[in-house]
């Protein structure tokens, strides 16, 4: 077998030299006393606990609040690298919004034969209730968290589009806050573009999507499933930072054709609802009748144009893993340009030839459920045991349409701090884009997730991943 080249190390070039983006940081790092850094690492953990930046893991008792481990070596991108990424994300997010509008209205992309109809018709994320309706400002996905991986100097791939309810932005902000507290001197030496405006931009962007029925200053609220949800910290954090109310379904009710929240002084109308509740739970009258998390009747209010729901219901059709493989076509169809960001080769296991290839090469591939997320229900071929491979073979044969497969990418590495100094670990990147009629706004940086285990490619926090502060250098 041919020896694979080592993965791309973002800090250290093959000749041992430090890449330019990391030069200033590395110079600072080599002056630091390792014991002090180790202590800072412990401090950071205490800080996260005290502030309550924790998440709950499903299936564990609520007392088991966990920290997402934070690594204090930043992930650094040059202004030039970022500019290109940002352009690619902007192009993709615009295309996704155009695609969603098209799918729920004229369906030109289907008529043009660029996308098989069954992918839409048979898709659970497709909501017939959205047909013929245009959300306020024509925006479907207001907040997008595109997952990007890197395999080489100029090789960036989009792994997932996360167009429904991407999470993690609070970690991006708190990671930076932590770094600023721990190493203020570092930031006077290295000029880093700031991320702290995100909540303000989010507020502005959501306000710009307020329905026409709203004449004054829009009232914005964040809808959370409640304090036991794994991302509750983020929900409260964003509401707090935006100065918006944090509401649960039982705080809301339909009054005179509007959604209103129960306040100490009666009901008050909400114009924009940033919901962190899945489509299926949003309205028990329209979707899952058992849902206690949503608001009965909200879909009627929505269709009457009296509230903005961000992200729009039915948006999930765009970040479905089966649709993913068509994204380059989708981008081209709506923008008239080649996609700037690459897609990972994807085998749609529903297609017999693809299935055969996948089964023959399972050990080299990553297999994912079409509707899965969070790293659950996924097979990483090269790391899988014989038994796991067999289980997946059976699953694939039983329900091939439920899976896609992709080659295992050699994800780039960034060093983390370990007992012996620095050691490379695989990373991905989730930048956050905000879409409104004012345009698309992307925070410089995003959330870098890192697989803390040596050699591991799984960066999900639920599976032992950590986070890093992500720096985009000033020009």
């Amino acid at each position, binding site marked *: 077998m041919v020896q694979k080249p080592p993965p791309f190390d973002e800090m250290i070039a093959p000749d041992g030299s430090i890449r330019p983006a990391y030069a200033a940081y590395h110079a600072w790092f080599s002056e630091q006393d390792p014991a002090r850094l180790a202590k800072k690492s412990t401090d950071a953990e205490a800080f996260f606990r*005290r502030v309550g930046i924790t998440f709950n893991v499903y299936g564990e008792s609520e007392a088991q609040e966990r920290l997402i481990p934070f690594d204090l070596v930043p992930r650094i991108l040059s202004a030039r690298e970022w500019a290109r990424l940002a352009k690619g994300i902007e192009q993709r997010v615009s295309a996704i919004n155009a695609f969603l509008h098209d799918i729920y209205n004229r369906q030109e992309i289907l008529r043009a034969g660029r996308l098989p109809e069954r992918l839409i018709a048979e898709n659970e994320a497709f909501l017939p209730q959205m047909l013929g309706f245009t959300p306020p400002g024509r925006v479907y996905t207001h907040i997008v968290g595109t997952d990007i991986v890197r395999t080489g100097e100029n090789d960036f791939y989009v792994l997932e589009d996360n167009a429904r309810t991407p999470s993690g932005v609070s970690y991006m902000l708190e990671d930076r806050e932590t770094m600023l507290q721990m190493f203020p001197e570092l930031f006077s030496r290295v000029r880093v573009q700031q991320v702290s405006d995100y909540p303000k931009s989010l507020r502005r962007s959501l306000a710009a999507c307020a329905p026409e029925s709203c004449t004054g200053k829009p009232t914005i609220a964040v809808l959370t499933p409640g304090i036991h949800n794994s991302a509750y910290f983020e929900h409260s954090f964003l509401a*707090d930072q935006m100065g918006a109310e*944090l509401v649960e379904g039982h705080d809301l009710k339909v009054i005179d054709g509007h959604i209103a929240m129960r*306040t100490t002084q009666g009901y008050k109308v909400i114009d924009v609802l940033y919901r962190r509740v899945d489509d299926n739970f949003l309205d028990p009258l329209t979707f899952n009748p058992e849902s206690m998390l949503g608001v009965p009747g909200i879909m009627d209010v929505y269709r009457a144009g009296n509230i903005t729901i961000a992200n729009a219901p039915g948006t999930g059709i765009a970040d479905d893993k089966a649709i993913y493989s068509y994204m380059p076509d989708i981008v081209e169809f709506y923008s008239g340009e080649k996609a700037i960001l690459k897609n990972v080769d994807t085998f749609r296991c529903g297609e017999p030839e693809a299935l055969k290839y996948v089964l023959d090469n399972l050990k080299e591939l990553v297999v994912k459920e079409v509707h899965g997320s969070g790293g659950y229900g996924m097979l990483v071929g090269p790391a899988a045991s014989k038994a796991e491979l067999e289980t997946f073979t059976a699953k694939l044969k039983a329900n091939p349409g439920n899976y896609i497969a992709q080659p295992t990418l050699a994800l780039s590495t960034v060093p983390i701090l370990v007992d012996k100094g620095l050691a490379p670990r695989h990373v991905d990147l989730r930048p956050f884009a905000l879409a409104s009629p004012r345009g698309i706004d992307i925070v410089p940086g995003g959330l870098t997730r890192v697989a803390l285990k040596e050699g591991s490619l799984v960066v999900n926090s639920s599976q032992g991943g950590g986070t890093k502060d992500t720096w985009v250098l000033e020009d």
Partner: protein
Amino acid sequence: MLGKTAGGLYWMFRYLERAENIARLVEAGFRMALTRSSISASEWESVLTTSGVLNAFNARYDKWTAKDVIDFMLRDPSNVSSVLTIVKNARDNARLVRTALTGEVWEAVNDNWMTLNQLLAKPVREAELPEVLNTIRQHSALVRGALHGTMLRNDIYYFSRMGTFIERADNTARILDVKYYTLLPHSSFVGSNLDNVQWETILRSVSAHRSYRWLGEDDMTAPGIARYLILDRRLPRSLAFCADQTVKNLDLLGEEYGDQRPCYELASQIRARLRNRTIEEIFDEGLHEYISRFIGMNNALGAQIETDYRFNG
């Protein structure tokens, strides 16, 4: 403000106050147990009754021993009134209303929960008890300090304060309710040594044993102590003080909202029963009846506030 948020604030501060009061009760009980072993079992019974968990305790243990009562009151997760349960409730409410709290208040509450979780992870040994009880009170003080020092004086603050005072009034009244017989003038203990011990325990349970003497009320008499805990508007844990503060906060809230709700009337009635009264009149009415009536009215006031400000619907 969301009704739910008002409710979360109110309950968060009720729980914080309750945790602190339980620490005081346990402390007074422990002291009694150390100094008067002969009556300590019945003292522990009073502690459990005051906290409303006597039945729950009896269902699990057959004797009121210091070790078991302390463990039950401080760290038993099955006890709805254990410090650990209450501190967790307070913190859950704080998470619920986190957007209404300053970072400092939230961190103080979260830190309180983390510290006590660790401190109460295993049974508390006798030697550590004073330290543990002290920590509980200290952390309460930290939360209070953060509240006073960093929070805006608006509805958020008023609901927080109301929770504190309604809970505190309930607590002082419960102590009086359980021990009222030791304060009756015709009590068979009158003038006995036992009386003094009981009275001191009552004062200790509300951290007023020192101030009582300091105010020159050195005659330890039943009416003197009853008057102090019920009517003295200088004592921050007296019923009169709590009633004053509740009305004051409802007043400020009414000013902010531009109207008064039915709970205001009820709070004023409670206050009126504590003003321009002498302890003799209260004894004439019947101390026990008076206290029971107060507890009932105070509970009704809490419920009325919840309704008036739409905590739950």
